[in-house]
């Protein structure tokens, strides 16, 4: 007879079955120390996640893996189970939004750093733990309607082997806290003072965009526009079934008061220590927002001809969401989200006010803004109108 055991996870209920896979239980308990997993009676209905021992590792089936998957190590299997558990948790709690970010508690507030994969979230999260801060997660954080982050209780996971360039103190911390690991990844074994338990809440205090750069000598902190934070949250969330309009409306009140910073650093541990020493001091409070992030130049083929004489009007169907100096626009239900900086927002407002052509717009902007040269403004505006037109944000009209 196979050794079959079902398990329940806090906040989800019975959801996991191990078949001849007993060694996984201790691994799972170790990699999600803050998320209680308890054996339960055999379920009549097969749990969503099933794992069988396999000669080459473990075989897993789950709703997100309908064809199954062969995982070669216990740690890798545990990681896969965590992915399914997180998905199930957000399915059971539709009022929560899953954010893809690292998160640590500093001075009673959560600092979150949403970013893409391999941006250094986990290393920075571990570095904050080494610097004495409490970790809420290195990959997923739940966000409730009150603007609080909620921990899942999963330990940070580091890519192995660690880079030799890491500072010796951080290396020592990782070595002292290394829990379950294989050749590729290792989970940190953190106690409950270092890792928030499942369901633990903390208000969000700031969004940190991170930029690891080997050329940086000393960490640098720059205040960003709130729109940078919103843009990042819109990209780094797991709310697959919520419209972006609903997400913007959800994030917007939060972003009105949530400072957004760019942290540039070379060494994660040095950056964590450096930031903790300055956090919420006058040095961070008085940082004035950067005027604008340098954006990648859009394609030139979308620009209007400089002799274009058509009059344009802003689309009345568009939904607009102002944030700071910027404006977020959705042209139509289910359509793309557009982020307009100060000048683009000015053009948009003018075209909402009255139909204007390229020349009239350029003259208006050039006469209003300081440091605006008409020829350059004309070229920029032609470019912008071309993009607006392609995005369906403006319509040509007859006057």
């Amino acid at each position, binding site marked *: 007879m*196979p050794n079959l055991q079902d398990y329940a996870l806090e906040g989800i209920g019975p959801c996991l*079955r191990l*078949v001849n896979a007993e060694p996984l239980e201790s691994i799972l308990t170790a990699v999600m120390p803050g998320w209680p997993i308890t054996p339960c009676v055999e379920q009549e209905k*097969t749990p969503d996640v099933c794992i*069988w021992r*396999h000669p080459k590792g473990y*075989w897993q*089936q789950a*709703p*997100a*893996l309908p064809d199954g*998957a*062969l995982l070669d190590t216990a*740690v890798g299997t545990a*990681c896969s189970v965590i992915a399914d558990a*997180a*998905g*199930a948790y957000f399915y059971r709690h539709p009022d929560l939004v899953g954010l*893809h970010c690292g998160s640590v508690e500093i001075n009673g507030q959560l600092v979150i750093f949403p970013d*893409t*994969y*391999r941006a250094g979230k986990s290393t920075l999260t571990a570095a904050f733990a080494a610097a004495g801060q409490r970790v809420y997660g290195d*990959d997923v954080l739940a966000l409730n309607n009150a603007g609080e982050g909620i921990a899942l209780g999963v330990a940070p*996971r580091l890519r192995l082997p660690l880079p030799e360039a890491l500072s010796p103190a951080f290396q020592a911390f990782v070595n002292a806290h290394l829990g379950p690991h294989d050749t590729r*990844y290792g989970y940190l074994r953190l106690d409950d003072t270092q890792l928030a338990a499942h369901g633990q809440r903390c208000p969000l205090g700031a969004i940190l965009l991170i930029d690891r750069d080997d050329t940086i000598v000393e960490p640098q*902190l720059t205040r960003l526009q709130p729109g940078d934070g919103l843009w990042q949250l819109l*990209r780094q969330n*797991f*709310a*697959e079934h919520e419209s*972006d309009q609903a997400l913007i409306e959800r994030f917007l009140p939060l972003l009105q008061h949530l400072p957004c910073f760019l942290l540039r650093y070379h060494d994660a541990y040095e950056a964590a220590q450096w930031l903790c020493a300055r956090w919420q001091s006058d*040095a961070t409070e008085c*940082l004035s927002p*950067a*005027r*604008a*992030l*340098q*954006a990648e130049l*859009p394609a030139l083929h979308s620009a209007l001809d400089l002799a274009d004489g058509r009059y344009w009007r802003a689309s009345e169907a568009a939904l607009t969401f102002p944030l700071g*100096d910027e404006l977020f626009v959705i042209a139509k239900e*289910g359509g*793309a989200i*557009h*982020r*307009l*900086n100060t*000048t*683009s927002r000015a*053009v948009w*407002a003018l075209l909402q*006010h*009255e139909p204007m052509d390229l020349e009239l717009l350029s003259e208006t902007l050039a006469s*209003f*803004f*300081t*440091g605006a040269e008409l020829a350059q403004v004309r070229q920029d505006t032609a*470019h912008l109108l071309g993009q607006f037109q*392609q*995005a369906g944000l403006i319509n040509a009209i007859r006057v």
Partner: protein
Amino acid sequence: MSDEIDNTKDLLSKRRSRRQVLASLGLGAAALYVAPTLLSMDQAEARGHGHSRPSRSRRSYSRPSYSRPSYSRPRYSRPRYSRPHYSRARYSHEHYPRQERYYSRPQRSRWERDGVIEIRLSRVLPRW
């Protein structure tokens, strides 16, 4: 002459109203000009139906998937003895009907995807 005066008045009035529009955005007379930018993200791509790749004219992105280790594709690695006989019927694919697949994610693991950094962060931002 009168028409000329009227035209001038009309022109000045329109200029004034445009300045008022700009002032209503919180822009003062000393507002510095910055090149207008428009960043876009496509909701269809955001739902994971598109490929995450950089684009000059349109920034695409994919919603993230939860961290999952790399795993072997069933068609390559699924062994005949992958599941014991006792479990084949009970835990087979049919036990995951579509309506029960209540949460979904792209199946590709995150480290199989191309990373895309869409915001080019300025190297000349004020610092301390």
